[in-house]
C-alpha cells in the first residue's frame, strides 16, 4: 500500500512537472490567473 501511494505521488508529480514546464515556455497559464512562476522556471 505504501509503495502504491509513492508510485501515485510520483505519477502526479511527473504530470504536474510536465504541465509546469509547458506553461513556463508559454506567455501565461491556460486562462486568466497567473500565479508567481517558480524561480527555476523563470525566463530570466
Amino acid at each position, binding site marked *: 500500500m505504501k509503495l502504491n501511494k*509513492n508510485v501515485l505521488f510520483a505519477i502526479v508529480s511527473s504530470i504536474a512537472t510536465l*504541465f509546469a514546464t509547458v506553461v513556463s515556455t508559454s506567455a501565461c497559464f491556460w*486562462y486568466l490567473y497567473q500565479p508567481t512562476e517558480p524561480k527555476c522556471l523563470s525566463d530570466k
Partner: protein
Amino acid sequence: MEKLAHNLSEKIAEKLGYDQDKKEVIAYGLTAIFQMVGIFSIASFIGIVGGFWYESMVLFLAVGLFRKSTGGAHSSTFQGCIIISIFSISFFAFLSRYLFYVNVPPHVFFISVLSVIYIFSFLVVYKLAPVASPNKPIVRKEKIKKLKIKSLATVVFYYLISMIFIFCSQDNSHIRLIHISLSLACATLWQVFTLTKTGHKLIHIMDSKLT
C-alpha cells in the same frame, strides 16, 4: 484550489524527498491542472444545460491555446479567474448558438464579418502580443519574437478553420458549423480584447467586484 495544490505538493515533496524548487514546480503545475479542469467542468455543465456545449468547448480550447502565446490581462485571484472565464465562455457560446445567426446567404455575410474580425485581430496581435504578467515576465527577445509569430500564426489558423466551416455549411445542412465558426471568432476577439488597455481595465473592474 490553489491552497489545495500547495498542500498536495507539500505532501508529495515530503514523501518523495523533493527540495523547495521541485515542490514549487509541482505546486505550479497542479494549479494549472486544477484551473483547466475546473473551467472545463463548469463550462461543460453550463454548455450541456444550455444546449451550447460544442460552442463552449470551441471557446475553451481556442482562447486557452491562443492565450498561451499572446498572454493578456489576468485576474488577481484563482476564483476570480474561474468566474470570469466561465462567464465569458458561456456568454459567447450562448450568443454564437442562439443570437448571432442571420438568415442571409452565409457565405456572403459571415465571410465578410469574420474577415473583418480576423484582420482586426491580426493587427492588434501584431502590435501588442505577447502581453506578459508581473508574475510571469517575458524578457528574452527571442522568446518575445517566437510568441508573436506563434500568435499571428494562430489567428491565421483560426481564420482558415472558420472559413472552411462556413463553406461546408453553404447549403444550410450544417448550420451548427456556422455557430462553431462564430464561437471561434468570438474566442479570437475576446482574447485580443484582453491584450488591450481597455481589456485590462475591464478585467480589473470585474476582478475587484468578485474579490
